[in-house]
């Protein structure tokens, strides 16, 4: 067997799969080494993909040519719209996955991808020479050499399972942990920290009284994540169910609290903020009695149900007690107990937006190793790491996704300077330009990038481009149309309750009135409708209705983009910049940030110095004096 590869991916989770596929599809001969080929693309926690922020990532992965979007479209058991009533900027899809089918389909995709070789093995050492990555060594002594390595070790590095007072070495679902690699990373100057995460118990479907509970069905017409599936109808779906804790559950948790790892303190406290364990919820919000528990299927044929909201690492007897206190779960039979897992992750500030290490050249990292939580966040990083590893291999400029253009951009930008103790999870709250980064605009934002990178085929590119142009041309055409105050028009307007028409009014203005749709307006105008599909009409209407907001957002986008474009460390130090303070000069010359935007957001450049830099770079100072977060922290 070949012992040299252009790119080696270590780990076969969601980051590893995207990284390996992107690398191989871009033409690099790629090796994917994983602890266990059978558990490639495993979802060891919740059986769902998407949601606000996360769903945006999946859409963008799909546009750029990643795999997660298609894979979940094909293997979901439910597809649902979230936040439809709250507005276009936060609307998002969420799929319930068939965990088994998802894995199966992903593994098949990996197997049939040219240039990609799979290998089961336990990587225990990175081979680094003069700060440049050279290869890997396996537990068996086997050595593979390479140009670039992407490490996506997930939660497996020195992983420890914790259940009540007990703990033992082990990865998700009791698989073996990856040992040795952490030491190798440390030996090469990379620093490591401990993080934890936890999962709820799974119960036998027939032991749950679903008939007592509120059913939560999916949406037949939500479409899928990929552009090709945008109008897909999901006729067959499985529902989720909702139940709640009550006083008895709280009592049960309280009774067993002395055996909670949180109280025992036999686990690090640094875990994801957004999915606290039931014990943490009750410790933190003692006055709350009712906590939601979502009961979610794990697949078409799976007999296991996932109890979202009941995450805990309390001992088995506690888990049984708590479950029996919950309506619908009185007789639930636990198939797998919930547990917590503690693992090694990188300390903050050690990798770039390209996912390349700042310390070891040619080493890329992605996923939970980088301190994120979530399958979608992992996949997005894996994709960016895979793309950039190959671009570097070909001596091409790296792909720096902008935070003004995608949630992926927000993710990598935030993450590379994230220095909080808890893992990072994407939400619309992280994206300051969320109207621009709408779910429905993913193709329009990123298809050029996908095509230029090379992961989007010519024919796909042309199809999406034609679709994009159709929408955008229609928006332009609408901007020139207006409605005359003819009697029949006025009557119709009144009937539709959208105000009067006293003079000629432009279509843009009319669409901005509440209650008037593109279809109705085109009817009044007796104009041909160039758009007929619901997704296209939705994009047009949203663009026009929120034009004012988008324009204001755009002013800030221009400023952010300007700062992003000044890459750090700056290669040529303009003598005019000598007037800057010593501290700022150090920031500009050091390799701490990827661009000026990051330095400004982190408060490392004073306002005065920022104004000076912008003056030197020819940007109007006035616009910036009010820009960005304050330099005071």
């Amino acid at each position: 067997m070949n012992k040299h590869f252009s790119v080696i991916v270590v780990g076969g989770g969601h980051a590893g799969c995207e990284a390996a596929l992107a690398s191989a599809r871009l033409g690099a001969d790629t090796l994917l080494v994983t602890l266990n080929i059978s558990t490639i693309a495993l979802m060891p926690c919740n059986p769902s993909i998407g949601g606000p922020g996360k769903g945006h990532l999946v859409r963008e992965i799909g546009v750029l040519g990643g795999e997660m979007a298609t894979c979940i479209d094909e293997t979901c058991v439910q597809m649902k719209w979230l936040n439809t009533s709250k507005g276009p900027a936060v609307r998002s899809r969420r799929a319930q996955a068939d965990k088994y089918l998802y894995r199966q389909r992903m593994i098949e995709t990996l197997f049939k991808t040219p240039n990609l070789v799979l290998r089961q093995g336990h990587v225990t050492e990175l081979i680094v020479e003069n700060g440049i990555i050279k290869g890997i060594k396996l537990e068996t002594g086997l050595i593979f050499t390479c140009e670039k390595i992407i490490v996506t070790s997930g939660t497996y590095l020195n992983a420890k399972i914790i259940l009540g007072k007990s703990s033992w070495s082990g990865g998700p679902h009791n698989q073996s942990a990856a040992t040795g690699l952490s030491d190798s990373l440390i030996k090469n100057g990379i620093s490591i920290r401990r993080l934890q995460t936890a999962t709820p118990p799974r119960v036998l479907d027939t032991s749950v009284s679903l008939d007592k509970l509120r059913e939560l069905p999916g949406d037949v017409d939500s479409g899928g994540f990929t552009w090709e599936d945008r109008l897909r109808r999901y006729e067959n779906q499985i529902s989720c169910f909702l139940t709640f804790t009550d006083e008895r559950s709280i009592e049960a948790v309280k009774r067993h609290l002395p055996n909670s790892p949180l109280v025992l303190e036999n686990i690090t406290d640094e875990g994801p903020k957004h999915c606290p364990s039931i014990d943490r919820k009750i410790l933190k919000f003692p006055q709350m009695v009712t906590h939601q528990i979502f009961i979610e299927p794990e697949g078409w044929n799976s007999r296991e149900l996932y109890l979202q909201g009941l995450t805990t690492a309390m001992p088995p007897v506690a888990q049984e007690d708590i479950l029996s206190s919950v309506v619908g779960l009185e007789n639930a039979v636990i198939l797998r107990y919930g547990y917590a897992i503690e693992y090694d992750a990188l300390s903050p500030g050690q990798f770039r937006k390209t996912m390349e290490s700042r310390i070891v050249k040619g080493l890329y990292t992605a996923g939970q190793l980088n301190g994120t939580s979530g399958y979608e966040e992992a996949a997005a990083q894996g994709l960016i790491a895979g793309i950039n590893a190959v671009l570097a291999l070909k001596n091409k400029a790296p792909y720096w996704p902008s935070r003004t253009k995608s949630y992926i951009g927000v993710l990598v930008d935030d993450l590379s300077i994230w220095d909080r103790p808890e893992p990072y999870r994407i939400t619309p709250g992280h994206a300051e330009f969320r109207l621009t980064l709408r779910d429905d605009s993913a193709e329009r934002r990123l298809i050029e990038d996908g095509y230029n990178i090379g992961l989007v085929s010519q024919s796909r590119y042309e199809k999406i481009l034609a679709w994009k142009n159709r929408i955008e041309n229609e928006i332009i055409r609408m901007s020139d149309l207006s409605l005359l105050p003819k009697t029949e028009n006025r009557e119709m307007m009144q009937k539709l309750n959208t105000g009067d028409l006293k003079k000629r009014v432009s279509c843009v203005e009319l669409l901005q009135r509440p209650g008037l749709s593109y279809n109705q307006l085109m009817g009044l105008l007796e104009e041909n409708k160039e758009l007929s599909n619901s997704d296209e009409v939705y994009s047009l209407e949203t663009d026009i209705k929120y034009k004012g907001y988008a324009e204001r957002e755009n002013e800030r986008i221009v400023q952010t983009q300007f700062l992003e474009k000044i890459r750090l460390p700056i290669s040529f130090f303009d003598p005019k910049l000598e007037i800057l303070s010593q501290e700022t000069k150090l920031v500009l010359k050091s390799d701490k940030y990827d661009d000026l935007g990051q330095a400004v957001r982190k408060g490392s450049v004073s306002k005065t110095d920022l104004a000076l830099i912008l003056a030197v770079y020819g940007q109007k100072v006035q616009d910036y004096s009010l820009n960005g977060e304050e330099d005071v922290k």
Partner: protein
Amino acid sequence: MCKPKIDTIAAVSTAQGRAAISLIRVSGPKTFEILNRIFVKGGKKAFPLPYSAFFGKIVDPSTKQVIDEVIVTTFLSPHSYTGEDIAEIGAHGNPVVVGRIIQLLIKNGARAAEAGEFTKRAFLNGKMDLLEVEAISQLLSANTATQATMALNQLDGLPSKFVAEIREKILKHLVQLEASLNFPEDAIESIDEYQVGRELRKILNELYIFADNAKNGSLVSEGLKVALLGKPNSGKSSLMNCILGRDRAIVTDIPGTTRDTLEESILISSIPVKIIDTAGMRKPGDKVEAIGIERTLKAVEDAYAVIGVFDGSVVETEEDKLILENLKKLNKNIVLVCNKTDLPQKISREIFEGFKTVDLSCKEGTGLVDIFAVLTDIFKTDGIADFYEMVLLGAQQAAALDKAVCALERAVDGIGKNYQDMLAIDMEEAVRELGRVNGETVDMNTLDLIFERFCIGK
């Protein structure tokens, strides 16, 4: 986070020139290290101590030469003006001595401070917020007692507190809204849009008053502009001289003598006022006069109030009527002055109808008290006399306040029409811009606040 490295700065804090005492201020982490090198203290007291004065000598360590006998006052971080270690050297007020001490400080590791740098550090170290910084800068440059009072009032932090409270109120609703947008399935009670709308409306009304106070503040700190408008030779220049109590404008009997606008400051009821003498309104006789008239119109446009000046000793002319018509159209405070009452009156009084009119004789000095009284009344009605309420904003702060108000107006208008994500965008903008008004740390991470307040777990 990378905290910028802070150096130690030094500067003379008292006025330049010969004086009994000059004060040199040193601030920064190396303050006492530097002082220890050049300051030989007398007495047994440990150096430095919080708020303590030390007698001793400044000695050049390289030549051992005594430069001056001084009193050094020490302030220990964070209990000082800048929040850093501070030493204030009270030296004899001789520019040569002071210069040598400054040189010595720089030679031993300090840097000459830039203008306003001590205050900037105080701001950066959280000792004061932007409104207070603005107040300090206004206080230092205040020419009148009124301006100083306003600045001192602001230094009390009352306006900052007000802005901070408003921001807090909006933020509270925003966090709830953001929680429900970011975590749609977390059973977070969705906001009552109409309720939020009503509260935002209330907040908006408070901000309108604040914005008015800020507008008055800037009017007063610049001086209220009062323009004199009248036909040539109606006695505008005499009136100006009369108001000022000295000859400023050239007074002749030849119409059109004042070809440019003249500006002079006085205090009326403690309020700084700029009296602007204009070139007068008539058909221009030559090019220079045409330019003068253009400036007149501009001055009237910029003015806070206009005094229309008429010659009572002659019958009203077409020019007088034209001026009155123009005044009627102006949406400004207007006072008419019927001048030259020492002479027989020929003007018909009915043309003044609808205006506040003051009879005045520059020659005899009558009516001057009345014009001051009328102007004072106007100030009072506009709330300008109440300078304890006033707020001083820099240009950027004023722009930020304006943006915040616009964003809130949009939010209120959108209630019941727009989706909630738009409401969130507007509220976020308002919070962000209000943060800039008093330069508070604008940590817009509402997510943190969400996790503090809500049990997120789906």
